């Protein structure tokens, strides 16, 4: 199966790979996994006092499409509020990366990773 140029670009030059320190202020983590292919994805967001996502990092074990999907969303969430980040849909990710139907679950994984990270942030900042 041929990857699209955008997938290859993110796969070969992934953006924002890595982790934040666990106790860093405003950091929240979303962990998700796709049973169909065994992919595991960790997405971290760093949220400022104004509720805007300042930075994001990811670590993904999976195929090129899963890595590209997570790399792309780390770019997309930056500068967005957490509510705006929740508006990112897997269909947008799939469209941007021109994912074939068998790789749609990679984009679902990336969308769910954002949701999980935001849920973690809200849990930590309920008060």
């Amino acid at each position, binding site marked *: 199966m041929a990857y699209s140029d955008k997938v290859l670009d993110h796969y070969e030059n992934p953006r924002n790979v890595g982790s934040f320190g666990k106790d860093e202020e405003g950091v929240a983590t979303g*962990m*998700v*996994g*796709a*049973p*169909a*292919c*065994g992919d*595991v994805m*960790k997405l971290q967001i760093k949220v400022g006092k104004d509720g805007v996502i300042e930075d994001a990092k990811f*670590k993904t*074990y999976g195929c090129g499409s899963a890595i590209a999907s997570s790399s792309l969303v780390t770019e997309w969430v930056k500068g967005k509020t957490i509510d705006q980040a929740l508006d990112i849909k897997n269909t947008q990710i799939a469209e941007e990366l021109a994912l074939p139907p068998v790789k749609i*679950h990679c984009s*679902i*994984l990336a969308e*769910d*990773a954002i949701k*999980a990270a935001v849920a973690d942030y809200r849990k930590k900042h309920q008060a």
Partner: protein
Amino acid sequence: MSIDPTQDYFSLFGLQRTYAMDEAVLEAAWHRLQSQVHPDRYAHLPDVDKRRAMQWATRVNEGFRTLKKPLARARYLLELAGVDVGVETNTAMSPEFLMEQMEWREAVEEARAAAEVEELEQLHVRLLHHARDVRAELGRQIDVDHDLAGAADTVRRLMFIEKLQHEIDEALLALEG
């Protein structure tokens, strides 16, 4: 000989609908069915019969493959019970489990990069034991506790574990090859 296409694989093979499976009994049933539907027996008959015999043989082999492997058998049992395992859509595994998976993957990646065959072999053995425990849990959930939602979660975990096993085997093959 004719095969009812609506019959499930367990009935086709004359077996109880359980996760626990005596492989010798399954294989014996498979050989018996195979000999009944073997296309050679229909070679003298019109094309339409030959085609049907081919379809039966295919169904028998698919049934055998499905029932033989524990993970496929468990998925099939859940499917028969109307439980959706959600392998494409359910991404919400427990964070502890996913963290553990990530650590396993990191360990495999590092061992592979450093060509530590011994380390990979140890990971391989540890994972084999772990997989055995998880399969035992799956058996309890399906056959004893009838906890099908729990079993669906265990099936999803087992899919990650089998993927990991595959990665370790591949790494070992690459290093030893």
